[in-house]
Every structure is written in C-alpha cells, then in structure tokens.
C-alpha cells in the first residue's frame, strides 16, 4: 500500500468556548486540548454540543466567546476555506455530479495541482481507503460505506492540518461500521493528522481514540484514555454514560461505600456521607447458585463468550451481572443465587 507523505500533526486548543442558540446553551465554556497527531473522540448524548464544537473549530460556526488556537495561533479571523481542516460529515457530503475520483481531486484542484498530479494522488487516496477500483463511479452508484470512504479520502487528500469527523459512521450498518472504524484509525496513525472524532457511540469512541472526551450540556465532563474513562469515571454521569452500570443503594462512610454488605472504594469525592447510589459495573457482580439465598435469576441474555444475567433482589431491585457463558448452565431463570460484589472502585451519587 502506498503511504502518503506524513504531515506532522499540529496542536489544537479550545479555550473556554461558548455558544448559545436562542435559549439553548450549546457550548458552555468548553476546554479541549489535542496534542499533535492525536485522535480525540468527543462522546456525549444527543444535543450535548459535540457537533457545535466541531463546527466552531472548522469555522462553520461562530463562537460567542473563547479562543481557538491551531498550532498556537488564534484562528478567530480565519474563514473556513483558509483553515486547512479536512472534514467528513455524517452523510451526503459528496458532490453528486462528480465521480469518486473527481470528488477527491476537488480540493487538489483548488490547490492548483496539475491534472496529472491530481489524478495520481486521488487514485492513491482511494487506494488507501480501499476503493481504488471504484474511482470512476458517481456517488449514487456507491453504497453508504463506500461513500464515506470517498469522503474520507477527499478530506485526507489535501493533507489538512486537522481532520474533523462528525459521526462519519452513524449512517452505516454495524459490520461496515466496524470495518471502516478500524480503517480510519489505521490511516490516521499512518498519516499522523491531529483528529477530532465526534460520536455518540461509546464503543466506537473507546475503540478508536487515543483519548476520549465525555461531554454533557456543552461542557467536558472528563477526558482521558479509554481505559481511564471506563475504569475511573470521574462523575456519575460518565459512569452511567460509558458502559453499563447497576444503580445500587449503599451507605457512604469514611472508608468507602457499603453496598449489599460489601465495602467498596469510592472514585469521586464530592458526595456527602450517608445513603447514596453506587454505580456498579456488571463485571463487578458475581453470582453463586445457592438454594438458601434469597435472590432469584429472572432473565438471561447470551452474548457469545459472555452472558448477562439479571437477578432480582428480595427488595425487587434488579441487578445485572456479567458472567462467562460457560456458567449459564448453572443459572437458569428461577435459580436462587447469592450476589457478591468484587472490590472494584465505584462512583457514587446522591440518591435520586
């Protein structure tokens, strides 16, 4: 496979960026740092301001206040077409009257490259994203996944300083999504462009990014490595948004939280002692069949090597546990089980 000239990535910094649309505060003092060549995924529920952040960075939207620094320089007065950022939209961004190759050439023509050089580079880029054989097709003749590959090639062809991706995979089916996701990461590592990737799919964010930023209501809740975000969520919101969590009643004391009789270390500090809710991951819950126990298995879902077992406690609270599928034989619905928690740190929140 041909490798493109490695563009050394550039640092990007958003400082206290705010934006309001009418009554909606889309961004509320967002701070975000991207190291050169890094891929950061912005993750958050719908309407939390991810797209707005990306569009402001691209220059497609104005910030009300705050600064945006690219390579250390404030880009406030720089219009979109001078920002040199490649962009891939959610869908529909290919020019329908141009072939795949012509779409990729579009930005190169703007950079006054010769026809031959353009052509060569376009084919090279299409090759890179894995659809070199479809260069002469029009967008309507390509599948959704292929179209997004062309869009990616088009954005990469101009060797932008920064690559911006706004849910580029959300219109695709699960399998293509997985494939293209890995491809985006491979190419990004190869080319080394600083990349901001917006998504509301946590699995995508965790699998792809160097660092994941979790947003809520126009602010960054937490940013860190995927593992960090998953294992050490800083707030109840992050814990419940990333990964599955059981909300279990507990009592917060000086040396941790006591849930179902088990003391667990606590990740976040700012909650008052007393009755709380602890967010416990399914993999921290262990089940043992025990005819004398008072919890009952109510449902089982098979996920391949792993399985999720839903258990009803005597007070009717439902707890989801993750177990190896091999153990399912011992845990048919109706089984009486003992529920124990592994001493893995949890996040607590004030009871709702």
């Amino acid at each position, binding site marked *: 496979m041909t490798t493109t000239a490695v563009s050394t990535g550039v640092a990007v910094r958003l400082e206290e960026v705010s934006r309001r649309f009418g009554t909606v505060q889309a961004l509320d003092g967002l701070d975000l740092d991207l190291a050169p060549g890094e891929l950061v995924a912005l993750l958050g529920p719908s309407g939390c301001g991810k797209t707005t952040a990306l569009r402001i960075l*691209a220059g497609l939207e104005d910030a009300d206040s705050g600064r945006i620094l690219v390579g250390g320089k404030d880009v406030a007065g720089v219009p979109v077409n001078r920002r040199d950022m490649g962009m891939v939209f959610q869908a529909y961004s290919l020019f329908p009257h141009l072939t795949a190759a012509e779409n990729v050439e579009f930005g190169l023509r703007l950079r006054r490259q010769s026809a031959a050089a353009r052509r060569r580079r376009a084919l090279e880029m299409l090759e890179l994203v894995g659809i070199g054989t479809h260069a002469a097709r029009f967008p309507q003749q390509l599948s959704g996944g292929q179209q997004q590959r062309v869009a990616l090639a088009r954005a990469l062809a101009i060797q932008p300083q920064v690559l911006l991706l706004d849910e580029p995979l959300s219109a695709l089916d699960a399998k293509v999504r997985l494939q293209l996701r890995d491809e985006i990461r491979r190419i990004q590592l190869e080319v080394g462009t600083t990349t901001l990737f917006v998504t509301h799919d946590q699995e995508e964010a965790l699998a792809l990014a160097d660092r994941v930023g979790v947003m809520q209501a126009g602010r960054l809740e937490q940013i860190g490595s995927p593992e960090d975000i998953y294992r050490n969520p800083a707030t109840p919101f992050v814990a419940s948004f990333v990964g599955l969590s059981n909300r279990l009643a507990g009592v917060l004391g000086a040396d941790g939280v006591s849930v179902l009789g088990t003391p667990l270390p606590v990740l976040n500090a700012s909650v008052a002692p007393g009755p709380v809710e602890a967010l416990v991951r399914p993999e921290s819950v262990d089940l043992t069949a025990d005819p004398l126990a008072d919890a009952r298995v109510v449902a089982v879902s098979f996920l391949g090597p792993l399985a999720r077992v839903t258990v009803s406690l005597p007070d009717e609270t439902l707890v989801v546990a993750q177990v190896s599928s091999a153990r399912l034989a011992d845990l048919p619905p109706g089984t009486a089980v003992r529920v124990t928690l592994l001493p893995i740190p949890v996040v607590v929140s004030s009871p709702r």
Partner: protein
Amino acid sequence: MSRRLRDLLGVVPFFVFVGVFLVIPTLVVAIGAFLGDDGRATLDNVTALADGYIVQAFVRSIVLSAVTAILGAVIGALLGYALVTAEPDSTVRRVVTSACGVLAQFGGVTLAFAFMATIGLSGFVTLFLRDSLGVDIFAGGVWLYDLPGLVLVYTYFQIPLMVIVFLPALDGIRPQWREATESLGGSTWYYWRRVAGPLLAPAFIGSTLLLFANAFSAYATAAALVSQGSPIVPLQIRSALTSEVLLGRENVGKAMALGMVVVVAVVMALYALLQRRTSRWLD
C-alpha cells in the same frame, strides 16, 4: 371470471373517461389537421401553416415565449434563492410560495385586468406618471394591448411559475456541499461555479423550457388583453374557431393546434429529460 380480468375492471372508469375527454379530442385535432372540408385526407391545412400570417403568429408566439421564459427564469431563480435562505417553515416562504402558486396558474383574465388598471390608458401608474412626473408612457403609441404588453404581463406570471418549479431543485442543494467546498479551501464564487452551478444547471434549463411551454400555451391573458388582431397562435386559433366568415378555416385551426402540440411536446420532452438528471442529483 379470472382474477386478472377483475383487476382490470377496476381501472375501466378511468380509461373510459380519459379516452373520451382526452384521447379522442387529441385524435380529433391530429386527424382533423389532415382532413379537408369534404372529409377527405389532404395536406392543404398543414401547407396552409406556411402562409405568411400563420408563420408570423408562430414566430411571435415563440419570441414571446422565449423572452418571457428567460426573464422569468432569471428573476424567478433569484427570488427562489432568496426564499431558500429563509427557514423552510417561515412565514415569508409560505406567503411567497402561495402567492406564486396563485399568480402562476390562476392569472388569466385577472392579470389582464390588473395591468389595464395599472398601466392602461387610465391606469393608476399611467396617471401617476403623467400627472406627477409629466411622463407619458404611451407617447410612442399604446403598446399594452400588443406584443410588448404581452411580454410584460406574461413575465408577471412566468416569474412565480419559475419559483414553484425551481424551488425543489434549490431545496435539494445540501448545505453540506457548501461546507465541504469551503473546508476543502473553496471560496463562495468557486462553490457557485463548480458545485451549485453545475448541479442546478439542468434544473434551471429544464424550468426555463417549462416556462416556454407555459407561455406558448397561454390563452386567457392574451384573449382578455388583445381584442384587435391575432398576433399569436392561440389567438389565431380563436379566430379560426369563431369566425363564420371564413368557412373551411376550421381545419386550419386544427393544423395550428397540432403545430402547437408539436412545439410543446418537444419542449416538454426535453424538460422531462433534464428533470430526470436533476432528480438523480438533487433528491
């Protein structure tokens, strides 16, 4: 009775009705154009189309339609563009598109009257210009009731029609295309030249053709406005239909009607072709 036959029964009323009131009239015109007064086949009617006054009427009709189609297309496209920059459910857009719907298809006699009231001999504007500014718009003769007047009044209904037929294409232009162009480094001008222009061109030309056909077929406005002479084809057909003096001209009327159908059909076929291209790009 077989199921197929029963299925077909369901559409009999439609086909009978359309057959009697659309297909037969069309055939009457098409066949009548080649029949003489005695009912025999003849080419006389068609060759009569080469008569000076009929040729002139066709030329005038075509010029009138072409000029108003181009004027209407350019101004209408501009208005259409102004509308799509507004929110789709905004009041401006609703009011303007509804008004366009009315003016484009409802015009007819009303438009003729409206222009008489505006720039007729005792029209509002005529009087205002004469009394207040000392300008006599009819100094060079009364042009409202002739071809120049028709151009003016036709343009008045062509612009709204353009808005209606061109708006869907403008709506089909996705904001992402402009954003993609700009993020790739293109200016606004570049966007119009390389993206929006080529994308809209088929729709624009197609709409212009439709406007041409529309003006070419229009009758009511001209009939209400022009009472002396028959400068354009529809008015020639009127006089062929109504004059009792010139017996035997009736089938010449049919030949002219057939001529109109041919012109309109060619234009509409081109329109359909361009429309197909547009819908492939902009749906």
